[in-house]
């Protein structure tokens, strides 16, 4: 059977992206680290541009590597600033987020002006363009997504303990710092997976919104994780559909509009339902 390859790439890409970011976003939300995801996503932009400038290639693996390196540098900056100063985490993240993103945009504009280098569609990384996904990119997304899902499944009990009660985890001898690094690393991977489709600007919504929509309906961490994956991939598909059919609409904003609707609908429905429950059954 012949399916249009663009449509196939987009559907697969959004399913992978939605599930992976829903799953990792659940942990980010429960650990109150939504802003960390936002910082890592914005910090990925200069990495993408610099990787292109150094290699002259736009092979997905090279750009992803660049994004991961600059995301990791931003994360280290963040944690060393938090260790050595008394600044509020939100403030530090705002500084890291805006300065790395500023660097990325500046480099991107400079590249755009230089006559020799072709822009290579790097501006797609700002707001995302699912229609530009090629099979190579989807394959890389699939492999990285599978790594995330397998590691979360293997370390589910460890990540649950880390998210619920890290101090207790440490007191029983778990290497909490290592577990935290692995979880943050996976968060970074999930962000990288979404860069072409959603773009750096709105990637954090892709992490946070599905988890927020799933939270009121979940009685267990497994339920919340799966619920967020379903919300993420559904909204991903809907947004990509709009972006494919309506000319000039970037995918990221389209997906985020659906995510916003999902969050509001979830909270309103929950409120309605709760009002009809007897008091003792209300969560």
């Amino acid at each position, binding site marked *: 059977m012949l399916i249009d390859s663009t449509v196939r790439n987009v559907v697969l890409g959004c399913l992978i992206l939605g599930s992976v970011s829903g799953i990792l976003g659940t942990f980010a939300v*429960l650990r109150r680290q939504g802003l960390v995801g936002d910082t890592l996503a914005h910090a990925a932009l200069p990495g993408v541009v610099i990787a292109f400038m150094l290699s002259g290639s736009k092979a997905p693996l090279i750009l992803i590597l660049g994004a991961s390196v600059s995301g990791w540098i931003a994360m280290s900056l963040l944690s060393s600033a938090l260790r050595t100063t008394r600044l509020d985490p939100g403030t530090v993240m705002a500084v890291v987020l805006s300065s790395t993103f500023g660097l990325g945009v500046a480099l991107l504009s400079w590249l755009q002006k230089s006559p020799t280098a072709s822009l290579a569609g790097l501006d797609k990384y700002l707001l995302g363009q699912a229609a530009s996904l090629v099979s190579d990119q989807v394959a890389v997304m699939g492999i990285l997504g599978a790594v995330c899902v397998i590691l979360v499944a293997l370390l589910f009990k460890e990540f649950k303990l880390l998210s619920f009660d890290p*101090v207790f985890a440490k007191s029983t001898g778990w290497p909490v710092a290592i577990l935290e690094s692995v979880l943050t690393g996976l968060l970074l991977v999930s962000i990288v997976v979404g860069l072409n489709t959603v773009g750096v600007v709105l990637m954090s919504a892709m992490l946070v919104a599905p988890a927020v929509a799933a939270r009121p309906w979940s009685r267990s961490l497994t339920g919340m994780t799966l619920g967020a994956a379903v919300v993420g991939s559904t909204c991903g598909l809907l947004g990509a559909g709009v972006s494919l059919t309506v000319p000039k609409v970037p995918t990221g904003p389209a997906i985020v509009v659906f995510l916003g609707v999902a969050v509001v609908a979830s909270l309103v429905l929950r409120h309605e339902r709760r009002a009809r429950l007897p008091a003792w059954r209300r969560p």
Partner: protein
Amino acid sequence: MTPALSIRDLTVTYGEKPALWDIDLDFEPGSLTAVVGPNGAGKSTLLKAVLGLLPKVAGTVLAFGAPIADSLDRIAYVPQRSAVDWDFPTDVLDVAMMGAYRKLGWFRRPGAAERAKALECLDRLGIADLSRRQISQLSGGQQQRVFLARALVQDPDLFLLDEPLAGVDVTTEERALDLFRQLQGQGKTVIVVHHDLETVRDVFDRAVLLNVRLVANGPVRDVMEPAVLRKAYLGGRDQVVC
């Protein structure tokens, strides 16, 4: 006899400010000790520093004669209730089973044995009927009992409990104090950070009085003397006034 817990020259600071200054303490196996002192005396800090949850400026800590890092499987720590987010999507049984995670080791999921053990420990605290309840629906006292059950699941020899009786209902308080006596009867060592001077004398056999420095340590009747208590509670206040 090797002490269950032995602390030597322990000093901890928050920035420039000392939180604990040069503490020496031994806890005998089978003892039931209350750690008391005014706010900011370093009671919670003592437990955290012992477990290596906070950096020490100086000092050594041995549990059962071995470095603390090698003895964590014999110790249960019950943090203050406020340390966690009770809106986390999980139920009572699931939290109690977390006490079994370390013994399970990497990757292995809790199974029927861990479930049975957790239910038994919840039952010891009288909340087995709540096992399927969301933790967001618990009262403060019920939350505390879940934490105590999680510690029992760990099956330790040494219990370090941070304010387990703060803001709980009368039933929970009676259950908890009962449990401490039972544990002592089984030869376990129990150390409880405690705020209520009234109950110390009735339940505990030893008391440690802290105010950054160690003020007193000994049998309850010696430590809980007005003259000794004044040294910790009013002594601290005088310094603030000066």
